[in-house]
């Protein structure tokens, strides 16, 4: 296999290098790629959409249709991970049918409960992971302190995408990362308690639905799909600002979808689909 692999790789690489000889020089401002379509975006982004960041305006407006599917790709990935790994119902393992560990908080004694066993109803017993390490005060405190700031930054990135690098996708990932950090620093169960799986899945669907629904709304108002001009009478602004606001609405949708999907995928992967024990 290694020899075949090497052969294919050398062949393909040689072919690509051979073809690269005809490329325009790196960084040439007069290359065809820089002259044909892209100047239009740079010239008209402020004039037509009021968005100085050309990348944001192209992502969410000129080529917004791509981005809608891009968000759908992420959502699909979440659905597929859930579908493949998540253990549910009779095929899946209910909590009682599994061996699990509890810790008696007052004495520090660890109790192993065999499959099918029950624990006395008492708040003294705390469920712990199989590979449990005592909670580290420093890590726990710092992560708790950090989480709100990470979230604030994520919101800033989503809202300020018009004027600086960033936007719905990056902000969404940062927001998702804040919950993931919380899940890692404490344990998965307490993170899931704050952000339930159902909420998560519904939010993910809602986020993408906001995007596609905005497009469909434009269509219902008699314009083409995703033509944000249509939103002008609803948002009480002129047509150019309508584009700007349309981009913002869409970015928020992307942010929500990406955030929830990232958390969803992490939870499913880290708990092997059981949603009980994480990293």
């Amino acid at each position, binding site marked *: *296999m290694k020899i075949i*692999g090497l052969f294919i*790789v050398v062949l393909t690489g040689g072919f690509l290098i051979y073809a690269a000889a005809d490329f325009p020089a790196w960084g*040439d401002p007069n290359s065809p790629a820089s002259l044909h379509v*892209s100047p239009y975006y*740079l010239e008209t982004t402020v004039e037509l959409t009021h968005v100085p960041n050309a990348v944001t305006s192209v992502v969410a407006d000129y080529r917004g249709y791509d981005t809608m599917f891009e968000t759908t790709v992420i959502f699909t990935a979440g659905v597929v991970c859930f579908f493949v790994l998540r253990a549910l119902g009779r095929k899946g393992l209910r909590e009682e049918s599994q061996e699990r560990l509890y810790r008696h908080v007052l004495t520090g004694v660890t109790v192993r409960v065999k499959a099918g066993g029950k624990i006395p109803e008492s708040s003294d017993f705390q469920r712990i992971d199989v590979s449990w390490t005592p909670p580290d005060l420093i890590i726990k405190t710092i992560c708790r302190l950090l989480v709100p700031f990470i979230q604030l930054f994520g919101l800033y990135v989503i809202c300020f995408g018009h004027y600086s690098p960033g936007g719905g996708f990056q902000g969404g990932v940062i927001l998702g990362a804040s919950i993931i950090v919380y899940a890692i620093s404490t344990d998965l169960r307490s993170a899931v308690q704050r952000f339930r799986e159902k909420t998560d899945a519904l939010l993910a669907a809602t986020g993408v639905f906001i995007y596609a629904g905005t497009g469909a709304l434009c269509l219902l108002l008699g314009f083409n799909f995703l033509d944000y001009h249509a939103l002008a009478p609803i948002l009480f602004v002129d047509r150019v600002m309508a584009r700007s606001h349309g981009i913002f609405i869409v970015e928020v949708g992307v942010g929500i979808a990406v955030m929830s999907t990232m958390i969803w*995928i992490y939870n499913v992967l880290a708990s092997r689909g059981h949603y009980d024990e994480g990293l």
Partner: protein
Amino acid sequence: MEDIVQTVVAKYNYWIYITLMMLGLYAMIAKNNLIKKIVGMNIFQTAIILFYVSIGVKKNATIPIMQEVHGHAVNVAAYHNPLPHVLMLTAIVVGVATLGVALAFAIRIYNQYKTLEEDEILAQIRTREEQMGKI
């Protein structure tokens, strides 16, 4: 000397992207471990992203965020080409989506076969089939 350096620099990005891409492709074909293959797959994808980003570069230009707000015409040559950046945002997202799905499959396969090595999995499948055939 300056000229040679210039020509190397002019296409250096393209050589690197081809190197990385071949690295990823080789890992996907020749590596035995499923997670290593997934790493190779991601290297393969980032190499293509590097290629696209290299297309968008203009010398002595700045990031594609407009500075003058109103009035005079935009000097296009002063800003990098935004279109490849847009395309690659999508490609990165697709990359992480594929990564998540691939890892989910890897975990599921590990649950079934208790190994991530391709040859060991294939051996297990073969023994199982032989047993099925006998029974």
